[in-house]
């Protein structure tokens, strides 16, 4: 059996689930953030695969955009985490309970 679009999509789906698992299970803000990155990457993979198997470069352009946005997002997100850490001395989601009654 030759490797086709479906293979890539399944890998992408598995990676996406792994990223989500990280976001749900892990309690460290930075690791959660890494899970998010993993999810973005999984989406990228399926986009590139679509682009390849549909002979259309738009998917790749979209991936290019996503990578750029991800870079900006990481910069802002990490700055937020640093600011939060300065204020609370923690990067643990369960310690951040300001909104809790």
């Amino acid at each position, binding site marked *: 059996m*030759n*490797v*086709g*679009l*479906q*293979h890539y*999509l*399944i*890998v*992408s*789906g*598995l*990676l*996406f*689930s*792994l*990223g*989500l*698992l990280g976001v*749900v*299970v*892990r*309690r*460290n803000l*930075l*690791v959660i953030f*890494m*899970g998010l990155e*993993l999810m973005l990457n999984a989406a*990228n993979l399926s986009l*590139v*695969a679509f682009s*390849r*198997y*549909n*002979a*259309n*470069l*738009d998917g*790749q*352009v979209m991936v*290019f*955009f996503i*990578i*750029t*946005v991800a870079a*900006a*997002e*990481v*910069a*802002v997100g*990490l*700055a937020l985490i*640093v*600011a939060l*850490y*300065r204020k609370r001395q923690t*990067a*643990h989601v*369960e310690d951040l309970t300001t909104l809790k009654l």
Partner: protein
Amino acid sequence: MPQFTDLLFFAFAGMALLFGFLTVANPVSRNPVTSAMFLVLTIISLAGLYLLLHAFFLAAVQVLVYAGAVMVLFLFVIMLLDIKEEERRRLKTFTVGVGSVAVAALLGILTVSALSAKPGSPAGQTRLAIGDTAELGKVLFNHWLLPFEILSVLLLVAMVGVILLSKKDLK
């Protein structure tokens, strides 16, 4: 040699999944640095997959931006904040259980939809999809010019925002 590229696909895909798993759920270590390093490996494996999909430019950009800059930033922040290993007792079984069920459900949906995807044609004969960087550039700067410009503004906004956020005496 289709056989050989198939082998490469399985190698890269297996590596990506293994390292991805070790990123989020490493059974040995909860160290954020370990997670970050495995995420770097995942990203590099994904770059390998991009190469198999003839997206050479994206593979290079993936390594350059993600592995070279974004993850270094992650490491930088982990070291700057001196974040210790997550304590083990804090992992609640309830969270893990519910999370796993939700993730498994999502995975099921994704798998079903992936299997129902039209296989498409493994293009390569058309010039459009052979991963030529010049072609990508043409598409990017003709059809997608406005989003590109908006993106550049977004980057600028992010830059200014980060500088503001990281000021210590923010009023």
